[in-house]
């Protein structure tokens, strides 16, 4: 079950890696493993040079879908704390897009749950990226490999 150990946020503001890590470990003496994933705007995608991204979402659905994904992860692995942040709006090259942090007693649960959350977020959470390139703007196409990865679990 998703519960008070979860923090889920959809926001325009940037997030702070150190603050997120501290929130995962502070007063948490039972968890020996912390895995984090951070996604950033990189300078190229599918062969095109990227200047910036704009992230659109479906506000009424976004947080609900992220909560469901975290809940599914909790039903599969014994997890301590889960923190999931997804940014929206315009993001420049090198900026942070998404953070997933998971703590657990042992490392395997933390690794697998963190990767599972990202795989499902990539295929089920209602976010869409529009890329700004030197040749103009265009919507990012979904990658088959993301569906393949989510299908593994």
């Amino acid at each position, binding site marked *: 079950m998703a519960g008070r150990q979860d923090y889920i946020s959809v926001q325009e503001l940037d997030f702070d890696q150190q603050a997120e890590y501290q929130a995962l470990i502070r007063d948490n003496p039972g968890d020996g493993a912390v895995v984090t994933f951070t*996604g950033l705007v990189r300078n190229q995608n599918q062969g095109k040079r990227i200047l910036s991204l704009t*992230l*659109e*979402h*479906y506000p*009424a*659905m976004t947080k*609900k*879908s992220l909560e*469901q994904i975290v809940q599914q992860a909790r039903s599969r692995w014994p997890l301590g704390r889960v923190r999931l942040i*997804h940014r929206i709006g315009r993001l420049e090259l090198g900026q942070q*897009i*998404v953070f997933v942090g998971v703590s657990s007693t042992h490392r395997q649960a933390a690794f697998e749950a963190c990767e599972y959350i*990202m795989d499902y*977020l*990539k*295929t*089920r*959470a*209602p*976010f*869409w*990226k*529009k890329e700004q390139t030197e040749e103009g703007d265009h*919507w*990012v*196409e*979904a990658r088959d490999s993301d569906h393949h990865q989510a299908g593994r679990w």
Partner: protein
Amino acid sequence: MIRVLFFAQLREVLHCHELSLAGPFNDVAALRNELMSRGEPWQEFLQPGKALVAVNQTLEEDSRELKSGDEVAFFPPVTGG
């Protein structure tokens, strides 16, 4: 009444973010057919393979039954993360 929402590329090509339809529609498939019957670009961009659907903010299949007051959203495959 069914509230229908469109997002991302779909919102742009249809020049429409939101509309209300009186219905009734038995299921998502019936609603999708009604929208696709409006001709291009609706016909092309609302094909089941191209447009996912959520009912009341949860991803669903076309067989999902609809009732008055439902919020139905169509959108392209998601690309967040």
